[in-house]
C-alpha cells in the first residue's frame, strides 16, 4: 500500500468543511468522464447539467421549489442522525403527510376559512409524525431495526397512495387517470407573485434556522448531540434514550410530512402516483453533505435540487436519460464519504520498508 492512515487525534475543523468541496469537485470531474463515455461532449455537458439551469429566472425559481422539500426532509434526518437514529424512510413520511393533509383537503373541497390551509398543513405534519412514530414505537418496544422498518414503510406508503388515487380518492372527472381532484383554493400553498416560488421555499430555510437554535441553544439539542457522539456518557448522565429517539423521529417525520403536504398543495396541486422522485433518499445525501448542520443543509439542498434540474436539462438538450441525476447523487455521496476520512485521519506515504508486522489496513 502506498499510503496509510494516521489518526489525527481529534476532528479536523478544516477538513470537515473542505471535504464536501473536494467531493463536489471530484464528482464534477467524474461526471465529465461519464458524459464522455456516453458520447456527449464532457465540458459542454457539465455546463448544461450544472450551469444552464441557473441562467434564467424561471430556472432559479424552479431550483427553490425543488430545494424546499429536500431541505425540510434533510434537516429532520440530520436531527435523527445526530442522535444515532437511522431514519431512512423520509419518502414514506413525506407521502403520509401528503395523504393526511391531502385527504382532509379533499374531504372539504369548498371550505372557505382562512384557517383551513394551516389546518391542512397540521394534518400533513401529523401524518408524517404518525408514520415515523411507528418506527420509534417498534424500535423502542420491540427493538426492531429502524433502518429496515422505516424503509418498508416507504414501500407501504407508496402502495397506499396508489390505492387511494386509483380507488376511493380518484377524481371522477379525471378521465380515469390515477389522480385525485385538484385541491380547492383554500387548501393551496400560496405562490409569490408570478413566480413558482411558494410559501414552502420560505419556510424551509426558516425551519432550518429554528432547528439550529434548538440544536445549539436548548438542553434537548445538547442531549441529542451527546447521545449521538457519546452514548455511554449520555447514559451516565441519565439522558433518556427513549425520549430522544421519540423526539428525533417525530421531528423528522413531522418535517417530512410538512414537505409532503406543501408539495402536493403547491407545485403539484393534487394527489398523483408520482408525488416524490425519491426526495426522502436524496435528503440523506443533503443531510451528510450539509454536515448535519442546518445552514450546511440549505446549501446542500440547493446543490441536490440543481442535480434534478440538470437531469431534465440533459434530457432536453443532450438527449440523455434523466437518470443521470441518480448517478450524480450516488457518486457525490461516494466521494463525500471517502473524503470524510480526512477529518479524523491524515494520509501518510508509507516508506519502502518491508515491515515484519504486516499493517492490516
Amino acid at each position, binding site marked *: 500500500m502506498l499510503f496509510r492512515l494516521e489518526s489525527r487525534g481529534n476532528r479536523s475543523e478544516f477538513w470537515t468543511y473542505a471535504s464536501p468541496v473536494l467531493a463536489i469537485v471530484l464528482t464534477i470531474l467524474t461526471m465529465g468522464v461519464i458524459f464522455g463515455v456516453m458520447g456527449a461532449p464532457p465540458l459542454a455537458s457539465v455546463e448544461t447539467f450544472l450551469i444552464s439551469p441557473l441562467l434564467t429566472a424561471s430556472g432559479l425559481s424552479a431550483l427553490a421549489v425543488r430545494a424546499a422539500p429536500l431541505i425540510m426532509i434533510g434537516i429532520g434526518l440530520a436531527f435523527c442522525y445526530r442522535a444515532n437514529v*437511522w431514519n431512512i424512510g423520509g419518502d414514506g413520511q413525506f407521502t403520509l403527510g401528503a395523504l393526511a393533509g391531502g385527504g382532509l383537503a379533499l374531504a372539504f373541497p369548498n371550505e372557505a376559512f382562512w384557517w383551513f390551509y394551516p389546518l391542512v398543513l397540521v394534518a400533513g405534519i401529523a401524518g408524517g409524525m404518525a408514520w415515523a412514530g411507528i418506527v420509534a414505537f417498534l424500535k423502542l418496544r420491540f427493538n*426492531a*431495526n429502524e433502518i429496515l422498518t422505516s424503509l418498508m414503510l416507504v414501500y407501504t406508503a407508496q402502495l397506499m397512495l396508489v*390505492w387511494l388515487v386509483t380507488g376511493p380518492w380518484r377524481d371522477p372527472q379525471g378521465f380515469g387517470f390515477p389522480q385525485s381532484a385538484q385541491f380547492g383554493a383554500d387548501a393551496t400553498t400560496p405562490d409569490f407573485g408570478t413566480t413558482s416560488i411558494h410559501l414552502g421555499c420560505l419556510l424551509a430555510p426558516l425551519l432550518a434556522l429554528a432547528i439550529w437554535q434548538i440544536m445549539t441553544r436548548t438542553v434537548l439539542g445538547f442531549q441529542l448531540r451527546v447521545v449521538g457522539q457519546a452514548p455511554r456518557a449520555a447514559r451516565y448522565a441519565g439522558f433518556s434514550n427513549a425520549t430522544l429517539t421519540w423526539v428525533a423521529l417525530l421531528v423528522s417525520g413531522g418535517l417530512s410530512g410538512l414537505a409532503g403536504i406543501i408539495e402536493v398543495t403547491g407545485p403539484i396541486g393534487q394527489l398523483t402516483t408520482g408525488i416524490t422522485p425519491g426526495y426522502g433518499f436524496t435528503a440523506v445525501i443533503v443531510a451528510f453533505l450539509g454536515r448535519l448542520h442546518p445552514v450546511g443543509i440549505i446549501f446542500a439542498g440547493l446543490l441536490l435540487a440543481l442535480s434534478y434540474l440538470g437531469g431534465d436539462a440533459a434530457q432536453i438538450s443532450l438527449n440523455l436519460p434523466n437518470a443521470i441525476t441518480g448517478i450524480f447523487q450516488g457518486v457525490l455521496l461516494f466521494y463525500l464519504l471517502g473524503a470524510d476520512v480526512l477529518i479524523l485521519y491524515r494520509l501518510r506515504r508509507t516508506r519502502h520498508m518491508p515491515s515484519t508486522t504486516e499493517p492490516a489496513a
Partner: protein
Amino acid sequence: MTLFFVTSFIVSIMAASTPLLLAAAGELIVEKSGVLNLGVEGMMLIGAIAGFATAHATGNAYAGIIAAAMAGIAISLIFAVLTLSLLANQIATGLALTIFGHGFAALLGAGYVGIAAPTLGKLAIPLLASIPVLGPVFFNQNILIYASFAIVIFISWFLRKTHAGLILRAVGDSHDAAHAMGYSVIAIRYAATAFGGAMAGIAGAYLSLYYSPLWSQDLAAGRGWIALALVVFSAWRPFWLLAGAYLFGGITFLSLYLQGLGVPIPSPLISALPYVGTIIVLVLISRDSRRIRLNQPACLGKYFHAVT
C-alpha cells in the same frame, strides 16, 4: 388436478424465494465477517442491468449471470474501499450504493424498457425429473434455483466445518483477536464483501433473466432490503435463511395469487403484504434482544484500524 395445482404453487413459491435466498446468503457471509453492507438493493439492481445487457448483447443468459456477478463484485469493492480502507460509515455507504445502483440501472436500462433478453432455460436432471410431482418441482428448474440450495449447504458447511470459516467468524466476532493472531482482518473482509456483491449481482440477474420477462425500472422492488431483514430473521444461521426466504417467497406468491383470484381487496394493498410482513417478522424476531445479541457477530458494523 389438485396435485397439478399444488405442484405449480410450489414452483411459483420457489421462483419468488430464490432471489431473496441468493442475496441473503451473500449478505450472511458479509455480516459474519463483521461488515454490514446495506447496499444489497443497489448491488442487485446493478447485477440485474449488467446481466440483462450482457445477455441481450451476447444472446446467452449464462454470460449474463457471469457479468452480473462481476458487476456485483465491482460495486461491492467500492463499498469495501470506502468502509474498510477509508473507514467510512458503513450504514451511509450502503445507502450510497443503493442510491447509485438505482441511478445506474435506470441510466443503462433506459434503452431496454419493455425489451426482453434471452431467459434462463430450465435444466431437467435426467431420470430424476421424470419422478411424478417431485420431479418437476425439484429436478426441472433453472440453474440458479439449484445453485441457491447448493449455496446454503455450502455456507453452512463452510462456516461450521472449515478452518477458513472459523477464521471468518473470528474476524467478525473479535477483529482485534484475529488481528493479533496474524490474520489480515481487512483482506478477509474484502473477500467476504466481494462474495456478497457477487451473490447480490446474481440475484439481480435472476430477476432480469428469469423472473421478469421484460426489463423494467426498479426490478428489485425492495427485495434487497427484505434480504437484509432475512439475515436478521435467520439469526445468522444458513438453514434458517432458507426457511425465511421460503416464508417470504410464500408471502409474495400469496399476494400475486390473491390478486389473480380477484378478491375484493384492492391490489395495491395486497402488494404491500411482503413489506408489512417484513416489519411483522422483524418485530417478532427482534423482541428477544438477548437472542439477537447472542447470535449477531460482535464486530458487526464496527471500524477496524490497525495501528501497527
